[in-house]
């Protein structure tokens, strides 16, 4: 039997990869994907803990997260397309309109 800690370590590694990619990558789509990766790392911990304590609520949380992630992906992709149409780039360094 695989111990829970192994799942947790895998989840931590995935989350760290997601964070690192989010911070390092320039392409908006890659950044988007790294967010998905972080979300799924969290999902993995939920499932692992649900298995460790025989309880179903952790698994239900995962469904919620998936639904929210799907909705977010739809909106996010639409925004990315809109940005690309107006600015013809997906490099985040050139999309810094927030600073005045």
């Amino acid at each position, binding site marked *: 039997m695989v111990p829970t800690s192994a799942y947790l370590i895998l989840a931590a590694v995935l989350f760290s990869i997601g964070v690192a990619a989010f911070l390092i990558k320039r392409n908006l789509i890659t950044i988007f994907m790294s967010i998905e990766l972080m979300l799924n790392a969290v999902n993995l911990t939920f499932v692992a803990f649900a298995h460790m304590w025989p309880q179903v609520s952790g698994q239900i949380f995962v469904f919620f997260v998936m639904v929210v992630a799907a909705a977010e992906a739809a909106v996010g992709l639409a925004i990315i397309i809109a940005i690309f149409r107006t600015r013809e780039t997906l490099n*985040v*360094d050139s999309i*810094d309109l927030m600073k005045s």
Partner: protein
Amino acid sequence: MPSDYLWLIPLVPFAGFLINGTIGRRFPRALVSAVALLCTAIPAILVAWLWITMKAPGAPEILQIVSQPWIQITGLTINFAFTVDHLTLIMLGVVTGVGFLIHIYSVGYMAHEEGYWRFFAYLNLFMFFMLVLVLADSFLLLFVGWEGVGLASYLLVGFYFQKDSAANAGKKAFLFNRVGDFGFLLAMFLIVREFGSLDFSHVFNAISVNPEWHGGVLTAIALLLVLGATGKSAQIPLYVWLPDAMEGPTPVSALIHAATMVTAGIYMVARCHTLFDRSPYALAVVAIIGAATAILAASIGMVQHDIKRVLAYSTVSQLGYMFLACGVGAYTAGIFHLLTHAFFKALLFLSAGSVIHALSGEQDMRKMGGLRKRIPITFWTMTMGVFAISGIPPWAGFFSKDEILYQAFAAGSLGKFVWLIGLVTAGMTSFYMFRLWFKTFFGPEHFDEQVDLHDHGAAVHAHSGGHAVMVADPEEDHAPHHAHGVHESPAIMTLPLAILALLSVIGGWVGVPAAMFGHNEIEHFLEPVFSTGATEAVTASANQGLVLGLAAASLLVVALGFYIAYVFYYKKPRSAAALAAKAPALYRLVENKFYIDQIYTAVIVTPLLMFTRLILGGLIDGGIISGSGVAAGATASGLGALVRKVQSGNIRSYAGWLALGAAAVLVVMVFGRAIWPH
């Protein structure tokens, strides 16, 4: 009873001030004068009524009205209270009588001036405060009037405020009075501490029933009061504001700076005679200040060229006489001289104003001369004044001045000393007054007829500054004369002159001593006020020979003064300049008023300004107060600049901070537990 209407005496002029001061600007000049004259005539009539009532046999010696408490704190109650005794009555008579005459004169003198309404509003305000001052029944109410006349004086000295010199003279007068007021305030604090009250009757009764009280704190109070009096009455060391106050219109000089306000200090000392009698030391100080001021001012007055400044120094000198009289305990003589001085000095100032008016604003006596035939009425009234102040019998000044000199002579060794100074001053007075008389009215004409052919009718006398708007005056009956240059003043100005001239002749007859076959009525009149004093006046044992001998001595000195003036300024007009050239250093010293203004500037004003500018302005204000503000602002904006760098607008940097924070929380959660176990 007139006491029911006592409160009207000051309040009517105040009403006049309110009317003219608020809506007088829109009034025609005739209406402004009518309001101002009416509001001075009513108190004068009331005072006359009061006088008749109180002169009647069996009349009370003191009238009093008391209001509801004004200030009430634990252990100290002060009422609005007016009191009238015989001393107050004399002051009331002077203030309302001379004041009314000067108001009449002003109607003519100020006829062409801008700000006519303002002038009369201030003049009525002055009357209000002066009447409060003399009617007051407590130190505090007296102080209200005291400060108020200072304010009115400031406003009127600076009447031509467009002119720097006038504005500065007003400020100077105010500031010098402030020094004196400081002394007065401290004296009041001491009185409250010692007596628990500021009422005259309470304080003086407490002193009277305790004959063993001498010196000590009484001396301290008396000396502080003297400081107050030196400020208001222009004595050494605070006299220098009065000559500068001549920047004001001439009627103001006559009313405030000769007849009434400047005598407030003498009135106050006389009012507090119970206190002063218990402090021989303070009295000696008063006598010495008076004598020193009398001779110093007289010596400066001998070489001045501005006609008003001669009179100003003469006023300072005569006030010194009054101080001297109070200092030797001869309060009656002091008040008597105050009375006659009010007549003849007001007359001299108004006559000088008439001369200035005739010459369209010329005040320099070197540019006068030979005016005797040109302005005969003014000449004759001025002559009355000159004779009165010089002390020629039977003019008013002779009796009052001789009374002071006699009382001084009879008052011990210090008295003999101040008598000698007083005698010398009498000679100097005679000299400078006849010098003025000869230079103005006799000899060749030095004035320029052309001067007044242009720009007359506009405000020109008493250098009225840069406003030259001619205002049509419906009652300008003397306008045609203006074209003729030097001209006599209109009747509205010469009438008060004539009345004052008459008073200057006969005013002294109320105090003819018994030795000269008179009754000395003023002495008996004031007896109820001053008889409580410890220093009994010496007239009871008046030595007829001594009185006449001293009178002869002073007459001799006066005649000598006249003769020197006659030789120098009439017979051989060049000889005065020749004499001055022989002792140029001395002459320059006196002509520059002993450099006292310069000494004050160097010793007090300059260090004070340096201290203010460098320490207060530079270090405290610029450095600490303003600096701390700047430092606080700089700190905030510096911190802000630092923190602003975090808000880059770059999403990834935000995410980085977020991740860093999350990592930090994680580290604390994991390893913190190991370091700080529960």
